[in-house]
């Protein structure tokens, strides 16, 4: 049984480790168009911001492939899947046969659709290559603008700032972190960034990148202009679904999979940022492009590929980060739309403590924690397992949640 | 259990082994069983004062944690500390109150067997208190002095009377800090009031009240007890005796007194020497009656009557486990309830005698001063009757025993040297000034099962002696060093530095002086005051090259003593530390800030070698400040860690 995995990141490694947990012998091949040994793309922002040493991005030790008996084709791009012949075509012309295949190709930064987008000095922020290119550009840049105020955008801005670039963040929405949290939370971080010397402009969209060959400034829809020799786009990510072409694999935004991470094509699985899964809190089909989901989906796929039946219990929207020593965790539905939600929040501006909990009926469906994030996983557990929290709501709202409190409920739910 | 022996005293190690072989439980086993020591309590961060709690302050929390009432770590540990001082003061002072009553009843002729033995001191102290001494019978004077001193406990005006004995400078410091103790009971009460839920929350203000209370102990309760015990039972004078478990006799009726008050034990001492008692013992097949003591009661009858000492605090149960004791008579303080369990395995009769202290499962024989001698006789008879029940085959008495000379006081130590009949501190001060003696250090206090028994006392004292420091001792510390043989005059030659050796030989004293029980720490205050008065080595206690050390401290009394020593200007090395380490502010004040207020501070250091180094550095610093001559004989530290 030859297992082939396209993608050498969270989902791919998750699958490889799962397969090896069950089957130490079966041939296993990993293909990736990146030439680096498995590293964490989520850490490129940490490196840029100087929070970790350079080149410390390894996700697994370099000996990983050898130790796990994995054939790694690094620096090679898969260009086509021949599901009939059970073959993957690579860009160097070679072909790899598979018995079971996992597509863990992740995503790529979305195009912004703004004129001048291809000018020099404008970067996505997705992989190690991007990071190296940004290092090059930083040397000569005086002003930098980050477009987008999500976690990645904020980290990128911290990075530019760290390198002495006069940095601003420009966002289309009315407040920072609009995807993961609300205005109160956004405000806390806005003040934090501003007090650390990073300017923040809200409610404006770029309309043009100006400059000859190299970007020099950005024009915005309100008529204003910002100087920028370096621009980082922190816009969303779109799944790398190209390989589905010419197969029976269904694509709707991402690759559609069943609860065993199998695509419509037999023996072909998909996992990670490329896959559409069911969100276990909202029950909607979506791409939850976050690391823990990617790994677990890969792991689920890996088990099923190696013959151990394993059902994926759904993904979850979540994120954790820390900026200027103020931690943030956001889980589940944090900006509820529609009826039936009950929202509680607490704000202590001076201590930069904020929390918010969203309930729907007897269930906790979302939480934002700023400043104090201890035991957040207990809340995630409540959401994932759909535990009736009506008996402990008071404790939750008082911040007195811990495992001891939910243990009887969690055990009852099992 | 730990690899190192439980004690540095071979007799104790042997007796403990013997007890273990018989499956007997002692303080060491119980201590193991209650481990770990609760860190919140140990650090002074557990508050049990009100019933909202107990509240514990997490010492590892990065955030500021407060108790339910809002008391933070400083308030909580200062309150705990203050309560310990209050309890310690209460113990010494309640003892003193009893002695006042004994003096009064002696004067009234109601106390059977007691007499006023030191008329000279009676007069002196009465004079000091402005009582008319001419044309007054000694009996009347005794009554009046007893009554006058009793006023110290509850007077509504003025302050504790012996405070006036302190050097002027220190009295001024006390006044400035507002800590002149008013009445002894009042200070104890005020400590309790202030530390009640929701009263005093300011750590410094709490500690200053603790100081006021402690001064009411050192210059109040303790001093009254010492002075009146001298009056009633006679001031001690140098006297030879023997120490350690080996003093127990296989062929005699062994009676051990244990606790703190000399009132009954003095009478037992009298009765034990009566021929008819001896006769009675013989009739029961014993060769005689062997009266000895443990803890401070031992020190009292040793100092005045030369009765041998069976051991110190941690040896109390082991004394019984020798199987050789017919009767153990206990009164108050440092009496482990565990004695009952130990005694239940032997023929040993254990009796409590103080109405303040009873132990479940133990016969209580109320001691009545009006029939003191009869009471003592009946106890001894009882003991002799018990001799026949002793199982001689299983008796195991460690052979260790050591000679000592005890009975030194502030008045008599340098008595012979003055060239006249008047005592003088000149030779002592001269020796310090000329660099023969580095200084004088009081090593006092208890045993504590948390440290190897007697080890800290011995290690510290040995290094001090080698470095020409004259050591004065009381309490269980004194017994520890006596067992080591350092209270024999010959010891000077064997262990002391050259300068100390010269002085000991000239004066004819051992290098370690036994000054008595723990209330007798007041003798050390007086001795220091005399050194100031003699002149040449400082205008104030805080300038003297002296220090105090309690390196196996165990009781709340020790905390009170430590605090009055510091507040009197004597820097004090203390371990294990009182429960203040969880509050950086309280710790800082006690070890540094307090120096500004009283001219001395605490040092909390657990390693006895470090303590020795610290004390020597402290003495040298005082010597330098006084521009005294350099030490005549350089003596490197015996051991360096």
């Amino acid at each position: 049984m030859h297992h082939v995995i396209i993608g050498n990141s969270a989902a791919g490694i998750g699958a490889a480790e799962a397969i090896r947990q069950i089957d130490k012998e079966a041939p296993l091949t990993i293909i990736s168009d990146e030439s680096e040994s498995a590293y964490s793309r989520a850490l490129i922002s940490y490196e840029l911001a100087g929070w970790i040493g350079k080149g410390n991005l390894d996700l697994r030790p370099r000996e990983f492939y050898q130790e796990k008996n994995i054939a790694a084709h690094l620096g090679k791009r898969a260009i086509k899947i021949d599901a009939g012949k059970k073959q993957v075509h690579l860009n160097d012309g070679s072909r790899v046969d598979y018995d079971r295949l996992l597509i863990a190709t992740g995503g790529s930064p979305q195009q912004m659709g703004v004129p001048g987008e291809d000018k020099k000095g404008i970067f996505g922020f997705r992989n190690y290559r991007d990071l190296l290119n940004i290092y090059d550009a930083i040397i000569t840049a005086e002003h930098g603008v980050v477009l987008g105020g999500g976690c990645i955008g904020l980290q990128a801005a911290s990075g530019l700032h760290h390198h002495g670039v006069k940095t601003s963040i420009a966002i289309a929405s009315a407040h920072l972190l609009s995807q993961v949290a609300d205005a109160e939370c956004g405000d806390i971080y806005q003040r934090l960034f501003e007090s650390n010397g990073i300017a923040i402009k809200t409610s404006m969209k770029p309309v043009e990148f100006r400059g000859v060959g190299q970007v020099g400034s950005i024009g915005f829809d309100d008529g204003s202009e910002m100087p920028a020799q370096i621009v980082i786009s922190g816009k969303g990510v779109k799944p790398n679904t190209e390989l589905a072409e010419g197969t029976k694999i269904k694509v709707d935004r991402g690759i559609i999979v069943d609860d065993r991470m199998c695509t419509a094509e037999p023996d072909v699985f998909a996992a990670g940022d490329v896959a559409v899964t069911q969100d276990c809190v909202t029950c909607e089909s979506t791409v939850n492009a976050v690391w823990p989901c990617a790994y677990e989906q890969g792991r689920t796929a890996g088990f099923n590929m190696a013959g151990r039946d394993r059902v994926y219990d759904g993904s979850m929207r979540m994120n954790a980060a820390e900026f200027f020593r103020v931690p943030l965790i956001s889980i589940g539905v944090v900006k509820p739309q529609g009826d039936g939600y009950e929202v509680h929040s607490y704000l202590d501006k001076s201590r930069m403590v904020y929390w918010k909990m969203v309930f729907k009926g007897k269930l906790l469906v979302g939480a934002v924690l700023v400043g104090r994030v201890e035991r957040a996983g207990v809340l995630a557990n409540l959401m994932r397992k759909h535990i009736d929290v009506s008996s402990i709501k008071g404790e939750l709202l008082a911040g007195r949640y811990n495992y001891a409190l939910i243990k009887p409920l969690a055990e009852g739910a099992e | 259990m730990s690899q190192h022996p439980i004690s540095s005293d071979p007799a104790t190690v042997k007796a403990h082994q013997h007890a273990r072989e018989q499956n007997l439980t002692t303080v060491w086993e119980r201590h193991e069983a209650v481990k770990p020591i609760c860190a919140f309590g140990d650090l002074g961060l557990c508050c049990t004062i009100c019933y909202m709690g107990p509240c514990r302050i997490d010492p590892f929390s990065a955030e500021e944690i407060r108790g339910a009432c809002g008391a933070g770590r400083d308030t909580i540990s200062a309150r705990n500390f203050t309560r310990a001082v209050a309890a310690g003061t209460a113990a010494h002072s309640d003892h003193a109150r009893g002695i006042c009553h004994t003096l009064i009843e002696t004067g009234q002729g109601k106390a059977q067997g007691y007499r006023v033995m030191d008329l000279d001191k009676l007069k002196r102290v009465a004079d000091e208190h402005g009582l008319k001494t001419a044309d007054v019978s000694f009996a009347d004077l005794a009554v009046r002095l007893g009554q006058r001193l009793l006023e110290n406990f509850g007077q509504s005006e003025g302050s504790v009377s012996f405070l006036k004995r302190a050097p002027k400078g220190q009295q001024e410091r006390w006044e400035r800090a507002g800590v002149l103790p008013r009445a002894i009971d009042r200070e104890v009460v005020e400590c309790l009031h202030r530390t009640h839920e929701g009263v005093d929350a300011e750590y410094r203000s709490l500690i200053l009240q603790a100081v006021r209370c402690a001064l009411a102990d050192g210059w109040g309760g303790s001093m009254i007890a010492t002075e009146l015990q001298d009056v009633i039972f006679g001031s001690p004078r140098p006297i030879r005796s023997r120490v350690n478990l080996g003093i127990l006799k296989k062929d005699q009726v062994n009676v051990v007194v244990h606790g703190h008050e000399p009132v009954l034990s003095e009478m037992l001492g009298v009765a034990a020497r009566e021929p008819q008692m001896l006769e009675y013992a013989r009739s029961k097949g014993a060769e005689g009656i062997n009266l000895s003591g443990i803890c401070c009661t031992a020190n009292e009858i040793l100092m005045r009557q030369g009765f041998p000492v069976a051991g110190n605090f941690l040896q109390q149960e082991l004394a019984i486990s020798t199987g050789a004791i017919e009767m153990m008579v206990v009164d108050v303080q440092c009496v482990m309830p565990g004695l009952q369990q130990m005694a239940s395995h032997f023929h040993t009769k254990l009796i409590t005698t103080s109405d303040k202290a009873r132990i479940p499962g133990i016969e209580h024989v109320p001691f009545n001063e009006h029939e003191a001698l009869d009471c003592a006789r009946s106890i001894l008879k009882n003991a002799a009757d018990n001799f026949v029940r002793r199982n001689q085959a299983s008796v195991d008495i460690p052979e260790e025993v050591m000679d000592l000379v005890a009975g030194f006081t502030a008045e008599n130590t340098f008595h012979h040297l003055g060239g006249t009949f008047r005592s003088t501190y000149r030779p002592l001060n001269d020796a310090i000034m000329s660099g023969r003696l580095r200084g004088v250090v009081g090593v006092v206090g208890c045993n504590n099962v948390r440290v190897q028994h007697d080890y800290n006392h011995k290690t510290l004292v040995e290094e001090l002696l080698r470095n020409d420091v004259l050591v004065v001792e009381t309490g269980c510390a004194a017994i520890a060093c006596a067992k080591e043989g350092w209270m024999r005059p010959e010891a000077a030659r064997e262990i002391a530095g050259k300068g100390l050796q010269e002085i000991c030989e000239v004066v004819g004293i051992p290098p370690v002086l036994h000054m008595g029980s723990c209330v007798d720490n007041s003798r050390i205050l007086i001795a220091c005051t005399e050194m100031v008065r003699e002149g040449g080595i400082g205008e104030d206690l805080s300038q003297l090259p002296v220090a105090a050390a309690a390196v196996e401290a165990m009781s709340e009394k020790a905390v009170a003593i430590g605090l009055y020593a510091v507040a009197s200007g004597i820097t004090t090395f203390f371990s294990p530390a009182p429960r203040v380490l969880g509050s950086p502010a309280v710790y800082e004040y006690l070890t540094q800030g307090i120096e500004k207020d009283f001219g001395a501070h605490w040092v909390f250091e657990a390693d006895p070698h470090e303590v020795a180094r610290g004390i020597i550095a402290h003495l040298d610093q005082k010597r330098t400040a006084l521009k005294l001559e350099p030490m005549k004989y350089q003596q490197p530290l015996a051991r360096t860690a």
Partner: protein
Amino acid sequence: MTSQPRKIFAISELCTACRSCEIACAVAHSRSASLIGAILEVPLPRYRIEVQAGSTLNLPLNCRHCDEPECLFACKAGAVSKDEATGQVRVDLEKCVGCWMCVMICPYGAVIPDALIGKAAKCDLCENRAEGPACVTSCLTGALFYGTEEEFEEYRNTRPLLKQLKAHR
């Protein structure tokens, strides 16, 4: 895994919430390894076991060293690993970046965000301590146990009073 892994188990009914285990843990993870030294350290050492107050019982809780360690799956820095031989879940502090993904995901809330050093603190079973886990040796009432699941079951069954206590709650 060939043999059963050894873990730390807790018996809630025996826990008196004295918090000795927390203190012992902090001291065991301090540089000075003594209580007095530890409370003065900067940064303060962090304990990795927490005595949690539940609605009826106290639960001394630390890392469960799970068979399916979610923290490992979630760690985007690759700082978490599971020792295949001992079953121990380890955090490599060199690699930890303090992103708190593990804090967000651990269903027990047993990974502690140590704000003072910006890294995740969690139970390491005191692997370098000869006497075994400090929390276990510190527990007065025997509420904590270190051993395999089987050994724990046996231990639990031999605890006196447990049945009565259970009935009482």
